[in-house]
């Protein structure tokens, strides 16, 4: 029972990641894309945790923590970048 539920949960997380990616493609402003990418990163952490329980290998959780750290630092770095630079052709607003 629990294996089926874990599979269903991972499929749900993958669906959410797809929706976030669609918003990242559509997003009219840079900030929509950054928001969608942030959500994508959080969902990746959750997906790694669920896959850990599906495969029964405990060392995946360390990767999950590392990924969440990298996600946060990457977000802050990106925002610092948007304060000073630009993304090429695309205007910010």
């Amino acid at each position, binding site marked *: 029972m*629990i294996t089926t539920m874990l599979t269903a949960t991972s499929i749900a997380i993958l669906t959410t990641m797809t929706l976030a990616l669609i918003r990242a493609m559509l997003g009219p402003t840079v900030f929509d894309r950054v928001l969608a990418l942030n959500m994508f990163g959080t969902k990746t952490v959750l997906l790694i945790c669920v896959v850990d329980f599906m495969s029964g290998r405990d060392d995946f959780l360390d990767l999950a923590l590392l990924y*969440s750290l990298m996600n946060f630092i990457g977000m802050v770095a990106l925002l610092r970048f948007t304060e000073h630079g630009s993304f090429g052709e695309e205007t910010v607003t």
Partner: protein
Amino acid sequence: MTLVLDVLSCLFLLVGSIFSITGGIGILRLPEFFSRMHAGGITDTMGAGMIMTGLVLQSGFTLVTFKLVAILFFLGITSPSSCHALAKSALTHGLQPILDHETNTEESSPE
């Protein structure tokens, strides 16, 4: 006892999945940036929290539980911080939110 735990854990995982997909739908449906941030908040709090609780019920009382709770605690601190940084950066760049109710308009941004 294990059956009860399994059922509870399945329930938490189900609720977490539903809320996570709800946030995904919200980020597509809502009309503009400042509203979409709230949809991101749903997946970060309820989706992550419920799925993690389900996994904790599965793992029992081990180091894995500590790791899961630590990841959840860390997510709970970083996700509002990055959300706030995003909103403030958007305001600084002059992206004005579309409001349905004009309240407190005398408080303009200080920049």
